């Protein structure tokens, strides 16, 4: 839903790093995104194409690596990987739903590929 403002940040950060490295063009941007980050890659890519026009990131591919969701059980303390669509916040070991989210909300620019 807020892909536009997120991708504006991605563009700013990527161009900043690219310029610091004397790049003439950004070819690809690699993003790691938690499965619960609420960012839909398709929309993010579409918005990125719009906002990157006339920048060195124009035509850059935006690749997403989706990271799994891990929770920690507050009862048995085991860590389990859970399904994300729809999220089932349940411990895989003891079945308790008193779990704390450990990861799955990340949204990070992992790297850029430049020439």
């Amino acid at each position: 839903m807020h892909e536009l403002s997120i991708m504006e940040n991605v563009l700013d950060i990527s161009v900043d790093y690219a310029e610091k490295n004397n790049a003439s063009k950004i070819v690809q941007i690699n993003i790691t995104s938690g499965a619960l980050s609420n960012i839909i890659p398709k929309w993010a890519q579409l918005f990125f194409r719009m906002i990157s026009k006339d920048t060195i990131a124009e035509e850059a591919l935006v690749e997403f690596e989706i990271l799994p969701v891990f929770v920690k059980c507050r009862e048995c303390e085991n860590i389990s990987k859970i399904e994300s669509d729809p999220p089932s916040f349940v411990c895989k070991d003891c079945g308790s739903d008193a779990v704390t989210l450990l990861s799955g909300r990340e949204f990070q620019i992992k790297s850029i590929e430049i020439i």
Partner: protein
Amino acid sequence: MMSQIRTIEIKKSVFEDNTIKADELRRELKNQKTFLLNLMSSPGSGKTSTVMGTIDRIRDRFKMGVIEADIDSVVDAEKVASKGVPVIQLQTGGLCHVDATMTKEGLGGLKTKELDVVILENVGNLVCPAEFDTGASKNVMILSVPEGDDKPLKYPLMFSIVDALIINKIDCASYFDFDTKAVKERVTKLNPDIAVFEISAKTGEGLDSWIDWLCEQVVIWNR
């Protein structure tokens, strides 16, 4: 000759800049003893009515200000201004949330240093505002009875990041299949430390315990 493609590692969270700005703002507010409440909910949950009821009950104790954030229009700001409380309208121009930079701009317009409590009425939306730290002292959300008791299942992030949940419009509970007990159970699993208040901003029912909690948080903030 083909140019060589180089890979530059960044490993930077896209939210990082906002989180840093939010932490800075929180420190500034703490130093000047201004409590900032970030109030979030769906459109039509009764945010403005709850803000108005809250103003009436604490304005004698605290100097108050309100930041109204909407995609467009000044309707809410006009309602609050009719109470004689300083209010500033942030029009987000299509943006679905308020971030720390926008909050700071809003506070600047309110002359914050003279205010004890500022309420930020965030954009009506249960998704995006949960992702962006505004720099608030406390985050509170409203869920109104007509929205349904399944919302914690559909928007787990929002329910897991707030310090308190206000269940509003309890005066019309009998018209809806709204299971308050189920909501509390679902929410407590996502967020064991959450405070839950059942109110009707319209009739005033239940507002006292919400106000007691809020005043306590302000006192703790100013210590």
